[in-house]
């Protein structure tokens, strides 16, 4: 027999030709991506119909406004419109970074976000771990309901409760301090108190609700892991540290990445509701700065530049956090 790999016998096509023909036939048989997507859409049209509202929402509220982002690089005038306003390059960004108020707002945003991350992020995890340890179902459900409740209350009402609670005349906090012989403190007019009150309010309002995600993750941990640990002699505390926490770590990391991505999105309404000129020094953040400059001051282009800066920083943060997480914990958003 011939050693020639192309040998196929008398007069027939060579092996190479046969392989080529087979590949060609396979390629011809394999539908194109467009064809496959089309077929899928025909087959699963109900799924695509359900997708339409979300796509519309994304397009209308997130993608369409991006067109207006260009005014960050233009000398925008509402009379000339977005398209006809002249380009001015990075002038607005230079103005922003030369503006003490913006620098102050940026610093406050970072500090408040950092506090929120340090104190606010672990709180739902702790709550979930605590709920998980409660054995009595009635107590567990009552405690969960009480802790979830503030999430469903409007920010205006929450702010009202906070303002009332910290009121120097009739607030419960000052009443309590008064009972201890401490003079009333004007908490909401003192810059040094704004950040703790704001961060604390955020934790009170959202920690319970955010704990649901972690509770769901805990519910997904196989009970046999705990049984195995019990036989091995682990205490409840050891099981929490050595099984529950590591098991929900991927969820914690995903939530952390999302949180880092939203770091500069400090709760705008709550700041607006709680701050006042006396506390601008510690309370004014990029979003309130944009609101004052853009909506109240009519400097839409400058506000757009500040907003764009915010978005770019958030994008960089989330990409970095994701990359770090992917490298060190095998968990990532994408």
């Amino acid at each position, binding site marked *: 027999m011939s050693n020639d790999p192309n040998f196929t016998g008398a007069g027939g096509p060579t092996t190479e030709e046969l392989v080529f023909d087979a590949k060609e036939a396979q390629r011809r048989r394999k539908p194109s991506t467009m064809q496959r997507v089309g077929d899928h859409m025909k087959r699963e049209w109900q799924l695509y119909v359900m997708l339409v509202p979300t796509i519309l929402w994304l397009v209308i509220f997130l993608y369409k406004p991006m067109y207006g982002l260009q005014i960050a690089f233009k000398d925008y005038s509402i009379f000339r419109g977005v398209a006809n306003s002249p380009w001015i390059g990075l002038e607005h960004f230079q103005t922003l970074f030369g503006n003490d108020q913006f620098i102050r707002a940026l610093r406050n945003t970072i500090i408040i976000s950092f506090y929120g991350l340090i104190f606010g992020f672990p709180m739902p995890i702790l709550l979930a771990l605590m709920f998980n340890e409660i054995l009595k179902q009635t107590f567990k459900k009552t405690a969960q309901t009480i802790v979830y409740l503030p999430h469903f209350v409007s920010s205006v009402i929450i702010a009202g409760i906070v303002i009332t609670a910290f009121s120097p005349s009739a607030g419960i906090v000052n009443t309590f301090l008064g009972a201890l012989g401490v003079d009333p403190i004007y908490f909401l007019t003192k810059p040094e108190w704004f950040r703790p009150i704001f961060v604390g309010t955020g934790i009170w309002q959202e920690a319970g609700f955010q704990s649901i995600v972690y509770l769901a993750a805990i519910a997904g941990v196989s009970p*046999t892991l705990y*049984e195995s640990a019990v*036989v*091995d002699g*682990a205490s409840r505390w050891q099981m929490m540290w050595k*099984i529950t926490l*590591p098991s929900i770590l991927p969820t914690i990391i995903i939530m952390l990445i999302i949180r880092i991505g939203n770091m500069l999105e400090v709760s705008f309404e709550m700041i607006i509701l709680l701050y006042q000129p006396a506390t601008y020094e510690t309370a004014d953040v990029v979003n309130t700065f944009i609101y004052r400059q853009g909506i109240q001051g009519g400097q839409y282009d400058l506000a757009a530049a500040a907003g764009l800066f915010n978005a770019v920083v958030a994008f960089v943060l989330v990409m970095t956090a994701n990359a770090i997480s992917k490298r060190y914990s095998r968990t990532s958003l994408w």
Partner: protein
Amino acid sequence: MSGVRLEGIVKAYGAVQVVHGIDLEVQEKEFVVLVGPSGCGKSTTLRMIAGLEEISDGDLTIDDRHVNRVAPKDRDVAMVFQNYALYPHLNVADNIAFGLRIRKESKETIASSVEEVGGILGLTPYLERRPADLSGGQRQRVAMGRAIVRRPKVFLFDEPLSNLDAKLRTQMRAEIKRLHKRLGVTSIYVTHDQVEAMTLADRIVVMHDGRIEQIGSPMDLFLNPKNTFVAGFLGSPPMNMVKATIAAGDQGPVAEFDGQRVQLQQIPALTNAVGLEVILGIRPEFVSVADQNDPNLVGLDIDLVETLGSEALIHASLQGEPFVIRTDTVGQMHILDGIKGFTIEPNLVKVFDAKTGEALPGQVLEQ
């Protein structure tokens, strides 16, 4: 001695009792398999021994110590779970070392124990891998490693091979057997697979509806099942059951059915039971294939002959019920072509009372 004794063990969930007073004594170094269909209480019994379920009534003794109220960690038992119960965030070495770390063993002890166990189970190359990066068999070995590293007095296995494919199950079964021989630790193993029970056990405990039906060596249970449940549960293919009536024959008692008769052994319990409605238990392996010229032929409606190489399974029906024969093929193929029925030695027919399902006394088949 590191034996386990269960005396009148009961498990009840509220008013519902699921284990009804089990008595069992497992000797030191013995390998006992609890076998039975789903819901028979075998896993619950094992979990009570482990301390994962509270004992409602009765006494549990491990190593001559009453342990009803003793915490699982203080019973000195180790358990291997059906789904392995490996910690996904820990690598193989850390999984194996988990129990030792919890017990605050020294680093040197942990390292040497892990190394030793890794060697015994062939896990040394995988010690740094996480469970997600292992095959099913390797995960099962890690689970066993976690159990043996603590050198417990008793091993408890809760259907440890159920999640493996057939080939791997056979392989792991042999490994468990080998491991038991090597370590000599008292072991209680739960399974619903009678092949596992037959191959692994020193003694098998057949359970049904929260009660023990029979305890004995695998061959004893196979040859001398106490009742129709045990007879039907052990053996693959299962024992054939034929309804019949005992009659007096020329050479002793016979069983009659559908105008056919089978010679029974001459023992008082059968000789004196003329007219009794019975169930004949006939193992597929105990019959000889026969053609129509055989005078002792019991006729069958042959449906299908499955040739499996060295042996064949003949699927037939008798009294409208399936009847299976397992036979060698070597030198028999010409008979298989013309098979019309079977013949059987009288002492190989097991006779059960049709009303109670219990075997009539005195029918002991020696191994």
